[in-house]
Every structure is written in C-alpha cells, then in structure tokens.
C-alpha cells in the first residue's frame, strides 16, 4: 500500500473492507490481470474494468469526481424506487499514484449476475429474433423509467444489461451518467430520449454488422424504428385517457385487466364523468411494473422476472386444477406447489450445472422440456423424469451465464494494445 493511500475517501452504503485491497494507486487501465475478472468489450467513454472482490464481481469506472457522486446518488435513488438498474457499491476519490500524482475518481457498481451484455448475446448462436426481443425489453425499461420521471439522456444497448426472462428478456439500466430524475418528464424529454435510443441502437447494430457478428441483411434501421413503435404503444396503453358511456362501466375493469396482462398493476386510476354524467373518463395515474412477479412473490416468496413469474403462476394454476384444490386458499396451494414441484425440480440440477442459468429460468426451460417430451411420447411426462432428461441432454450444452462480462482477462485479442498515434496539437 502506498503512503498516500490513507487519503483515499470511500463513500459506500455498506462498505466492504475488501475494497481497500484493490490497487487504487494504479490507473485502472494498468491493473494487473490477476485482479481483473475480465475486460469489457468495445470502446467506452471511460476506462471500465471488472474486478473480483470478496467472491463477487464488481464493475469499476474511472470518471470525474462530481460526476461519480452524481451517478452514485442517481443509481441509489433508482434502486430505492425499484427500477431495474445496477446496484451502486460506492465512490472512491483521493486516489494517488506512488509519485503522488492524483488519479481519477472511480464509481463501483455490483455486477448483475446472470446478466448478458448485448454483444455477448450476438456472439452466441441465437434465434434470429433476438434483436427484436432485446428491443422489446428495452422499450419496457424506457417506459418504466419515463413513468417515474427519469430522463436517461443516453439510451443504448451498451448502457443496458439483459437477463433472460422466460422466452423474453428483462432489461436493466447500467449507465446513469447522463440521466436526471424529474417529477414528471415533458413530452420533449421523452421524445428526445427515444430519438437518442433509436439512433444509438441502429449504430450499435451497424457496428455488429461491421464486425460480422450480425447478418448483413438484418435491417438495423427497422429494428431501431421498432423500439420507438413499441415504446409508443406501451406508453399509450399505460397512460391514455379512455372515454365511454355511463352504461359501459365494465370497461373500467377491462382496462385494469389489460394493464395486468401487460405486466402492470394499477396503483391509482382517475375516474371522472362529464357534467351530465353520461360519459366516463378513465386514466391510469400510477402504474407499477411487475404484476405477476409481485403476485408470485406474495404467494411463494420467490423473487423472479415478470415473464418467468407468469409462467410459474400458470403452472401453479395447472397444479391446482390437477390436484383438485380450486376451492382452497391459494396461498396454501402455492406453498405445496413450491415444496412439491418447484424446489425438487430445481434441486434436481447438479451443483456444477447451476452456473448455467438462474433457477427460475431453468424451471421455465423444464416446463418447455416437459411439454416437448409429453408431445413426443404422447403422455404426461412427470417432472422427475423431465429433470433427468433435461440435465442429461439439454443443460450441459448451454454456456455458463452467471458472469458473462466481456473478454476474459487472459484473452486480450479483442482489446489488444495497438500503438496509439501521438495526440497531435490542438487544431485551429
């Protein structure tokens, strides 16, 4: 440790002493390979590295001090209001190299387990509609952020991480550097965010094409445009005022059902009538994402993604019907489903294969596999058999997704140091 290291200032909600063991006196760019978990792919505005710390992985970004504190606070606020975003660990300032030269401040965030950067999704062999499913996830995230008044300023695939969510993806915000939290957003802010997103996404896809990770004939512009369309549809469904005659009051419940179906709960609904009382106007005022995941959490205590939850709730319904317990309290049945169906299935996966996928995602795939086996064998294949077959034939073929970060530290081909052209003189 350097004599200056006591001047380090660490700001963290729950500081981990292991933070002190990282080599803060070395510029991030020169950190030794043994400290690093991986090098990120692509070119970022800042130097970013993944390091191992107390058995977990953290992302470290060198960035100006004020900006670091600002982003730390924003990420804390976002996680407090339950927006899918990376968890901030802390900010470190006052770094100096052994000669006493000041080094840039760093922002540290938790690495999101089982998350996938979009680049790694494209370098795996994937179904052709991956891009569309990523865009759908990003549109949902953007709508959720805008609903709570968060202006992102730099929406892009690179600033997002994706987690598998049944057959879809769930998107998480990774970079809040350009963001701002407002009471409500103006239409101009939303439209600008959307335009930045569209242009960035198209640029990122064109880059993948230039690097031959994506087929040349994929229409990048159409995919970017699809984001804007998906966003607008969802925004309308969630916020639009609907009017109907007094006699059609069933449409209130229909609207709520439709929002639930989209995965949102209605926290507050404005209902007004016109002066004569013949027309009813309804407008959702507060909507919260996670309708299904909240319901599953309440019934079973399982914390999973929205579409995984939807899938599991359906299985729970089937279990209820199959065991003829429709008239029993749902919570009791759910408890039995958890101990008799879900837990044995997930526990049936050997330890060394658990790094492949999250348990909820494994369960989703088991349900798919059971359906497939049952179709093939023309009988109801029990879960126990399904697990056996899945663990033997399917899961071993899947990549380990627990911590896909970028390039492994030992493999420097992608970010090999190319001699830099000397910074030339100021223009003008």
């Amino acid at each position, binding site marked *: 440790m350097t004599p200056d290291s006591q001047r380090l200032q660490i700001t963290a909600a729950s500081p981990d002493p292991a933070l002190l063991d990282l080599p803060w006196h070395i510029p991030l760019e020169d950190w030794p390979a043994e400290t690093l978990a991986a090098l990120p792919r692509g070119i970022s505005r800042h130097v970013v590295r993944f390091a191992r710390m107390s058995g977990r992985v953290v992302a470290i970004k060198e960035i100006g001090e004020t900006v670091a504190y600002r982003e730390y606070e924003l990420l804390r606020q976002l996680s407090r209001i339950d927006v899918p975003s990376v968890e901030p660990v802390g900010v470190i300032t006052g770094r100096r190299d052994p000669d006493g030269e000041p080094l840039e401040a760093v922002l540290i965030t938790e690495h999101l387990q089982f998350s996938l950067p979009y680049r790694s999704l494209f370098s795996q062999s994937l179904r052709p509609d991956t891009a569309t499913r990523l865009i759908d996830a990003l549109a949902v995230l953007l709508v959720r952020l805008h609903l709570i008044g968060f202006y992102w300023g730099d929406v892009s695939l690179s600033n997002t991480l994706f987690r598998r969510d049944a057959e879809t993806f769930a998107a998480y915000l990774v970079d809040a550097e350009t963001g701002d939290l407002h009471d409500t957003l103006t239409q*101009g802010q939303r439209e600008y965010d959307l335009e930045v997103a569209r242009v960035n996404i198209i640029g990122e896809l064109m880059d993948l094409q230039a690097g031959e990770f994506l087929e040349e004939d994929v229409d990048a512009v159409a995919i970017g445009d699809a984001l804007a369309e998906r966003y607008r549809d969802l925004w309308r469904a969630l916020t639009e005022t609907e009017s109907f005659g007094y006699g059609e009051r069933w449409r209130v419940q229909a609207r709520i059902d439709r929002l639930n179906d989209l995965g949102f709960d209605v926290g507050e609904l404005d209902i007004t009538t016109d002066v004569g009382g013949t027309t009813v106007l309804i407008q959702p005022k507060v909507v919260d994402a996670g309708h299904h995941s909240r319901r599953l959490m309440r019934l079973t205590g399982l914390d999973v993604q929205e579409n995984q939850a939807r899938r599991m709730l359906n299985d729970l319904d089937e279990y209820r019907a199959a065991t003829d317990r429709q008239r029993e309290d749902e919570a009791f049945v759910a408890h039995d489903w958890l101990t008799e169906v879900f837990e044995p299935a997930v526990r049936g996966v050997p330890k060394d294969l658990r790094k492949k996928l999250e348990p909820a995602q494994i369960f989703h795939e088991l349900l798919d596999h059971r359906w497939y086996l049952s179709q093939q064998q023309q009988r109801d294949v029990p879960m126990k058999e399904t697990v056996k077959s899945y663990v033997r034939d399917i899961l071993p073929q899947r990549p380990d997704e627990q911590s896909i970060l970028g390039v492994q530290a030992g493999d420097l081909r992608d970010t090999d140091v190319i001699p830099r052209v000397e910074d030339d003189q100021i*223009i003008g």
Partner: protein
Amino acid sequence: MATVTFDNATRVYPGTERPAVDALNLHIEDGEFLVLVGPSGCGKSTSLRMLAGLEDVNAGRILIGDRDVTDVQPKDRDIAMVFQNYALYPHMTVADNMGFALKIAGTPKADIRARVEEAAKILDLTQYLDRKPKALSGGQRQRVAMGRAIVRQPQVFLMDEPLSNLDAKLRVQTRTQIASLQRRLGVTTVYVTHDQTEALTMGDRIAVLKDGLLQQVGTPRDMYDTPANVFVAGFIGSPAMNIGTFPVLEGYANLGRARVAVPRNVIASLTEADKNHITVGFRPESLDVVPEGTADAFPVIVNIVEELGSDAFVYGSLTNEFGQAASVHSGAGDAQVIVRVDPRQVPGKGETIWVKIRPGEQHLFHAGSGVRIAV
C-alpha cells in the same frame, strides 16, 4: 445557419411558484458563440433545454431563424447537442463513425462521404478516416464524436457543461479547441457553463443569469468593464471584484479613513431605497500600493500572497479603519480584499500595506437595488 431568439420565454416547473426561467429575452446572432453563465440554479441549463425542446415553454416563444419552434419536437428543430455521447463503435471506421447518423436518415452515399471528408478536414482527421477508433488517441476520439454532430450540419450547436467531465489540463485544451473549431465552422452555438473563466475565454458574448432572470448580456469586455449590477460585478472576473457599501457624506463615499469622491450627478440620482448609501466596487488591479499617510489610502493586513509569476495578489483583511470592515467582501470572503501588487515587490505575510483606489476605476451601484449608476 440561423439566429436564435428567446422571446419572453418562461419555464415554471409544476408545483413551484417562482419561474426557473423568467421572461428571458435574448437574441443570438447567426454564427455567434453565446455563453450562458451563472451559479447553479440560475436557469442557464433550463434555458438551453428549452431551446433544445427538452423543457416546455410555459409562456413566450423560442425562434430558430424566423421559425417558431416553441412547440416543435427536439428532433425536428435542426439542432445538435454536442458531446453528450461520444462512445465510438469499435468495428466501424472513423468515417462510418462520423457518418452513420446520415446513413440512418437516408442521405445518399456520395453526399455522406463528401460531408464526412469536409468535417474530417476541419477536424484534422483526414488521414485517419479509414482506421478503426481504437487506433486513435483520446483527443482524436473526442474529435470524431464532434464530427458526428458536424456532418449533420445543424443550424445550432448546443453544449451543456461539456468540459465538466474532464480533468483541469484537458479542460483548458478542449476549451481552446471548441472555441477555435466553432469559429472555423461559423455555426451558431449556445454554451452553458458555471465557470466565468470559461465564459470569458470562449464567448463572443456572455449572458449572465441569476434566479431565472437575465442580469446582463454583452461581450466579455462589456461585462468586465461595465457590469450592469452588483451581482455581475462580483461574478465576472478572477480574482473577484472587491465590493463594499458605504455612507455618503459631503460628496464622498466614506470608507472609514479613506474617501472616494462621488460625482454630483451620482449623488443626485440616489433614491430613498439607497438610504444615503452607495455600493462601491474596485477590482484588485485598480488599487495602488502607496506610502502610509497618503490621502484616501487605507490599510490592508496581508494574510496570503499568491504569486503567479506575471502577477501577484495579496489576500488581506481590513481593519475597522476601513469603515465597517465587514461590509466589504471579495472573492476571498467578508472583510477581505484582494490587491494586485507588483510581482517584484511582494509584501510579507502579516505586514500592513496601504492601498488607494485609482481615480476613475471604481464602479458605483445603488445600495438599494444593486443597479449600476452611470457616471
């Protein structure tokens, strides 16, 4: 290219009473580099975002050229926010990195190439056009990002504290780069900063805002020589102006033992609100060090001397011989003054020096309203 006009533009945030920007009137000439400057919360960023279309305009209008854009969506305003995003794409060449937004917009290939080459020439990037970004230095990468905005040939460039992210050295370097680039391109530019040095060194004109109100707009020289009020006087200039409020007696502002003659027409213009007081400002370089006992001189106890080679500044305290010492303030704090001294004759710490305001170099303001009194 175009002019930009704020016509009584007002922004009131929902749930607040005081406007964040209050009836802003500002006309920016075609090709001009205008800097919006002021302390945090003054409304400078809000003004810029109103022009960008990110903030609603609750009253008044905003025009780009002759076109009223008050209700036009950001992407249809023909403006470019520079620097917000300069992540470059690793697999694309520098040329593609600069031109991809045009490709998205459906611009013909030949046009894209021509515009990219033109921008590259201005940015000194011509020989790197076919390389990948990872072969570029940090400064060059930043210029590629600027090139992205340039090839779009927008009517107006908007920059919101673009240098806040850089370290001090790179900030000074990039400051010069942006200013010279803007002059070469001749694109109307609105630039927001809280740093008055940045404002003075970069802007053709500067607009100072405080509490949502425009205080003064003018060239750096105007702002420095004839600040319109006490706020601008104290905000513009580094080190800051020394400013104090004193009673007026028998045609003089009484600074304790020292006196500053106040012209008769100034005394005649004092109002009831001034309560027979006047605010006097004097810059550190408007003071002469004189022998003790010189008429109208006052003593300063030297706390620190800042030697900059070409200049030296004394940061000193006043005694109550200087009227109510506490009624004077400067960039160094209350009851403190800053004096520029001959760098070859620097007083020692703890010493007392006698200084006198050079005749005609004082700034006079109404004690009540803070508004400048024309002499």
